[in-house]
C-alpha cells in the first residue's frame, strides 16, 4: 500500500525525472529516425523499443501501477494486455502479409 509520508511530502522527484526521461526518449527516437543512418528494420526495432520504455516510465512513475495492495493484479493485467497486443498486432500483420502480395 502506498505511503504518503515517504512518497509525497517532498519535492516530486520521480515525476520530474520521468518527465525529463520522456522528453529525452522522444528526441532520441526522432534522432534515430532521421539522423542515425540505421537500416529501416533497425530503426523500427529501436524506436518501438524506446516507445515501450517510455510507456513503462508512464505506468510506473506517473500511474503508480505498483503501489497498491492490488499491484500484483494491476501489473498482471497490463502484462497480459501486452501479450494480447503482441498477438493481435504481430499475428495480424503476419497473417495478412500473404494477402498483400495477392493484390
Amino acid at each position: 500500500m502506498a505511503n504518503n509520508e515517504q512518497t509525497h511530502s517532498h519535492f516530486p522527484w520521480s515525476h520530474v525525472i520521468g518527465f525529463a526521461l520522456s522528453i529525452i526518449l522522444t528526441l532520441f527516437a526522432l534522432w534515430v529516425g532521421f539522423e542515425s543512418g540505421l537500416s529501416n528494420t533497425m530503426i523500427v526495432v529501436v524506436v518501438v523499443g524506446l516507445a515501450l520504455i517510455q510507456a513503462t516510465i508512464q505506468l510506473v512513475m506517473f500511474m503508480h501501477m505498483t503501489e497498491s495492495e492490488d499491484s500484483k493484479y494491476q501489473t498482471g493485467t497490463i502484462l497480459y494486455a501486452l501479450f494480447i497486443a503482441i498477438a493481435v498486432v504481430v499475428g495480424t500483420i503476419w497473417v495478412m502479409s500473404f494477402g498483400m502480395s495477392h493484390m
Partner: protein
Amino acid sequence: MDAVEHSPNTPLEYQSETGRLNILGFWIFLGAEIALFSTLFATYFVLDGRTAGGPVPAELFEVKGVLIETFLLLTSSFTCGLAIHYMRRHSLKGLFLWIGITLALGLSFLGFEIYEFVHYIHEGAALTTSAYWSAFFVLTGTHGAHVAMGIAWIALILIQLKQRGLTPDTSRKVFISSLYWHFLDVVWIFIFTAVYLLGMVM
C-alpha cells in the same frame, strides 16, 4: 463494509472499499483499452501503404506540428501527475492549479489535432479517400475522442471537488481520471512512433 484497515498514511483514494475496488476495476478497463487500440494499430499496419493513388502520408506529415502535439500531451501527463502529488498532500489549491494546467494543455492538443485534420482534408486526404487514410483517421480520431471525453470528465470532477472538497470519494474520482489521462499519453507515444515517425522515415 468499509473496513478500516489502513494506516493514516494511506492516500485518501485507497481508504474506502469502493476506492480500492474501483481503482482495480479501472486498471482492468485499461487492459481492455489496450486490446482495443492494438486492434486499431493492427488495422493501421495492414492498411499502411494502401493509398489507392491518392496522397501518401510522407507528403503531408510535418515534424514540427507532430512534435508540438507530442510535447503538449507529454507535459499534460506530467502536470496531471503533479496534481495527484498535491492531492496526496491534501492541497486542494495545488490540485486545482495543476489539473487546470493539464486541461489547458489537453485542449490545445485537441486544437492542434483538429487543425491538422482539417489541413489534411484540404490536401485531399479524408476518411473516404483510401484505406490508408480511413485507418489513419480512425486510429488518431479514436485517440482524440478519448482526449475530448477525458477533458469533459475531469471538468465534471472539478465541479464535484468544488462542491465537496477532498473526500475518499472525490479523490478516488480524481485519481481514476488521472490514470485515464496518463494512459492516453501512453497511447500517443505509440501513435507518435508508429504512425508519424515511421510514416515520415520509411
